[in-house]
């Protein structure tokens, strides 16, 4: 990413979606978009690949279920075998409910923490905000001014087609305004 970006604000998600497609169609690089809600189809328009967090969820769930099944079996059959009504010590059916709960617990917390980590969300993080209204009613597109050939006027003209309400140039300081 170069040190200058063009920030364009829109009032409607359809404008943002269309503008994103057009900007990418011109071969320009989109740094990020900021929206007040999850705009469906924006991931495809921006060319984001599908999230791999599902794998984190699956693996955490497997660890939860597997670990708990092993633990239950170890307790019931090895550490403290109790004869309950003549049932086998390591009776699998009675282990299922708790193993299921452990799977859900680990999978849920695992995927949420993974989300926080990969998105760098943590308490006390200073929000890197381009436009305060991006959490209210503005849809903001941030375009990278990749090289000297970047023609601001031409891009602004292109964005006008999509009812852009505001464009401005921004030079993110060291570390980046846009995390």
């Amino acid at each position: 990413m170069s040190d200058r970006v063009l920030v364009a604000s829109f009032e409607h998600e359809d404008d943002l979606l269309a503008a994103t497609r057009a900007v990418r169609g011109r071969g320009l690089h989109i740094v990020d978009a900021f929206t007040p809600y999850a705009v469906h189809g924006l991931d495809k328009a921006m060319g984001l690949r599908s999230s791999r967090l599902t794998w984190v969820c699956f693996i955490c769930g497997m660890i939860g279920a597997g670990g708990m099944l092993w633990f239950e079996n170890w307790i019931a059959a090895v550490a403290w075998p109790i004869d309950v009504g003549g049932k086998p010590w390591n009776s699998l059916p009675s282990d299922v409910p708790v193993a299921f709960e452990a799977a859900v617990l680990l999978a849920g917390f695992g995927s949420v923490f993974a989300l926080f980590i990969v998105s760098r969300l943590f308490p006390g993080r200073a929000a890197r905000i381009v436009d305060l209204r991006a959490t209210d009613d503005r849809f903001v597109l941030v375009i990278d001014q990749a090289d000297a050939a970047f023609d601001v006027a031409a891009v602004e003209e292109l964005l006008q087609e999509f009812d852009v309400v505001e464009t401005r140039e921004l030079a993110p300081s060291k570390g980046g305004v846009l995390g």
Partner: protein
Amino acid sequence: MSETPSLPRPELITGDKTLADVTNDICAPLECRPTGLWWAAIAVSLTALAIGVAAVWYQIATGIGTWGLNKTVGWAFDITNFVFWVGIGHAGTLISAVLFLFRAKWRTAVNRSAEAMTLFAVMCAGIFPLIHMGRTWLAYWTLPYPNTRGPLWVNFKSPLLWDVFAISTYLAISALFWYVGLVPDLATVRDRSKPGWRKRICSILCLGWNGSARTWHRYETVYLLLAGLATPLVFSVHSIVSMDFATAVIPGWHTTIFPPYFVAGAIFSGLAMVLTLMIIARKTMNLQNYITITHIDRMCKLMLSMGCLVGLAYGTEFFMAFYSGNGYEQFVFMNRALGPFSWAYWTMVICNVGIPQLLWFRKVRTTIPLVFLIVIVINIGMWFERFVIIVTSLHRDFLPSSWADYAPTSIEIATLLGSFGLFFTCFLMFCRLAPVIAIAEVKGAACLKKRRRAETPPAEKSPAEKIA
């Protein structure tokens, strides 16, 4: 492709709102001073909570001999309250997870408060088994950890232990689901607040959220995953609660219908409680444009279907008692309907199966005072359902010499009152501290119309009309 003709769908939010209006309307109750009504409500709730705390203190200090239990009726009021509150906790996850998977967009108006309600209801529920242990301060013995008593491990073959895991997992996952949903909205509150304590707290809790599309993309994936995980969880929790009963050999409890029967009842009572709170909240917080008559109508339909399932379960139980040819089983059910607790049984049937049939009529579903009355009746009926299942199955033992009766003591009633106090105190605080409607989700689902600056005037005729 030609356009498919379809019936116009009722709009999710009414009043021709813009995105900024949505933010303003939902944040308004947080930013103004509480009304007199709120102060009155919190005063009543805190009083109830104080009574409850005193009662709980007394019964823990003295022992559960302060209850009306006896050798025959070993479970009664306390477990009734436990099952009642866990049941209420089920509607939150139904609305936030199951309806999410079914893409029922209307859920966005109610999911936040339903999830909060779930959280508070499960908290209330958890208190009752803790007290019932008698030595509440040793409650951590239910957890499997290496200890100096052997080590003596917990018994994983017992449904009571499954319950410990199910309820605590449910509480944890509900809290997580609720918090994850809150993060974007806390950022909205942060960005519109003036510097001060609200902005500081929101800044910390929203984890530096800035609405990045990359984050939203991952967030949506995780939200879907959580919904997928919470859906089987919600069914497992009340199934496991029902197994506390179903795995016992007591006639009236020992039936295979219990898990689905309990889950249907739980969702039924939960929806009734969600509606109770929603009807009050939309009025007092001025949210009629977000929680519309359409929402109430749809919740009523869901509730009606659940009520009919519960009715079917009541009938099936009776039929199975007859069909089993088991004299004890038949006696228990005849005793339920005609014995000393028949008043409780018929209260249950009238409240849960009889009166909800009014919801077949659209007129009733859209008349809010009537709906409010019906949901209150259902709340009462569902409490009695648990009371009937627990007490009538126990109080006539196999040996007539062990037959006993049961009446709650004032301490038990004060504890129930206290749990309502805790529930409403938490809910009222939540209404003041967090957006009661998921702002980001409502905006996403509402499909607000585009307002162009160069808007074509509505009077202009379409090309087809011009030709004509």
